[in-house]
């Protein structure tokens, strides 16, 4: 098997695990973590294609994953702040019980 194929398959598996977590968990924080896992799977693809691509000297994949990590960190901070703000209103992080718009 081509090494790049192994990395792409691994990244699809990580993406699917993150998606499964985001779709099945009740805790909003763990849903956010599932989204982080999906972002990580995409980053792994960037690095794998940079490493096995035709022009690794261009640094494109590395730059893309660095910026993607920065955006993901900002997203995690704002997401957790939103969860805490919602928790203050409804006193739960259970998404099945957050079913009304007016707090």
């Amino acid at each position, binding site marked *: 098997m081509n090494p790049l194929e192994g990395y792409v398959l691994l990244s699809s598996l990580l993406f699917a*695990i993150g998606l499964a977590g985001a779709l099945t*968990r009740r805790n909003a924080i763990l849903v956010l973590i599932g989204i982080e896992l999906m972002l990580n799977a995409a980053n792994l693809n960037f690095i794998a294609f940079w490493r096995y691509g035709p022009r690794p000297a261009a*640094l494109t994949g590395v730059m893309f994953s660095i910026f993607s990590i920065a955006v993901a960190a*900002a997203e995690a901070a704002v997401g957790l*702040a939103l969860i805490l703000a919602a928790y203050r209103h409804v006193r739960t992080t*259970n998404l099945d019980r957050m079913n009304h718009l007016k707090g």
Partner: protein
Amino acid sequence: MSLDATFLILAAISVAGSAAAMGLRNAVHCVLALTAGFAGIAGLYLYLGAQFVGFTQIMVYVGAVAILAVFAIMMTHHPGQAEEPFSRYWLWGAVIAAAVFLTLARAVRLAFEPAGSVLAVPPQAPDLTVQQIGEALMHRYVLPLEIIGLLLTAALIGAVIIAMDAKEDPAMEDAVE
């Protein structure tokens, strides 16, 4: 060239950590398993020759995001109130995720089907130094770097304002307004 043992071990660590993070019942255990998964992915970055990204992954994900998640779980935890951790529709979610994985895996297998056509011989690992990354960030990617700085500042201030409890402290309320 086939897959080597290092890749398989790191892949097993990251998949097992991620699967445990999404499958365990206790939320704190989930985050602990998640750090193992993130560390496995960081190991893969290091193994691919992207040292800077690997150490960034360790600092940002294993360090910051996991600790942030643990704090959020502790602040929203009700002791003695055990809730079912999975949604009512967990079966649908699992089926959708499995379907996505099978579709992606099939597409990947088909894309690599004619053996030797796509990048069959991997090039030598590129020798990437932090100096090169710094020079690229300061020259070619300086505008994205500035925009990311602005985004992080805005996200930081926004997160503090969103999470701040303005009602309990009148002084804080004045500060916000």
